[in-house]
């Protein structure tokens, strides 16, 4: 599982949450690093903040789609149009921050099941 979140505190909190659920998490703080990793590896899924300083969400989505890696975006209430566009273009989901932790975990379980099964 790859996590891309520029905010250090949120990144740490999400990493802990996911690791406590038994996921192996590689946490990054920028989109460029994710794109590099996607050239070499195929993670089960990517959880990514929609507003990254270095990469547009649609670029990140495209990089994931090329590798057929499911991606879930996290973002803010003001980004409705961006959420709509990303899901239309193939993102698994777009969760509005703050979201119930259970929602993200359930979503990732579903993605993992789909991926494995």
């Amino acid at each position, binding site marked *: 599982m790859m996590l891309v979140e520029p905010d250090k505190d949120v990144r740490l909190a999400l990493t802990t949450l996911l690791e406590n659920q038994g996921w192996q998490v590689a946490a990054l703080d920028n989109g460029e690093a994710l794109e590099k990793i996607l050239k070499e590896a195929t993670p089960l899924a990517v959880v990514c903040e929609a507003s990254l300083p270095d990469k547009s969400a649609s670029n990140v989505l495209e990089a994931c789609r090329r590798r057929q890696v499911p991606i879930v975006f996290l973002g803010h209430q*003001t980004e*409705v*149009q961006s*959420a*709509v566009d990303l*899901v*239309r273009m193939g993102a698994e*989901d777009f969760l509005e921050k703050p979201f119930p932790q259970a929602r993200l975990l359930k979503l990732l379980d579903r993605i993992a099941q789909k991926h494995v099964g």
Partner: protein
Amino acid sequence: MSERAHVCIIDDDEAVREALRVLLFAEGYQSCQFASADEFLALESEPEVDVILLDIRMPGMDGMELHKELIARKSKIPVIFITGHGDIPLAVAAIQRGAFDFLTKPFENGELMEKIDAAIQRYRETREALEELEELQGRYSSLTARETDVMMKIIAGYSNKKVANTLNISPRTVEIHRSRVMEKMGADSVAVLVRMAGALGIES
């Protein structure tokens, strides 16, 4: 747009309906308006429109419920949701369910028109693809049982001789069946026939 496109507006706010009607008229589109989901569903048959602009919040059945109902009725008309309240979970759910797009008020007229044009374009393509598929299904169902057997073997890559052996008929008979299959299906090569079989969901 080459033909005058027809847009359906479903919104409980009369001022919004009127503003959209005027905008669409000015852009050269026809439109019809409904003040509620129930009013729309009361129609005897689905109206021949190219796109539906649907308000989410309406008294009675709301836009999301109406969208679900349209899906249950196997409607293929693209739906663009229009809402005054940007709500990500709602918007994402609508898109995941198959809505064409989702627009939050206030929006620029140009933005709406772009989405309408994109929806109309996709709907036309969908209809054309469906018509082609129906025509293909018609051709396929005109094959006799024996011709269908022969077609299956052809798309599996069998030679005439091998088809003849497998089906226990003479190579000459296979040739006749084969040419009838190609003629009835309108395929001028095996490659085209294989593509047709793929479109029809037929496995050799």
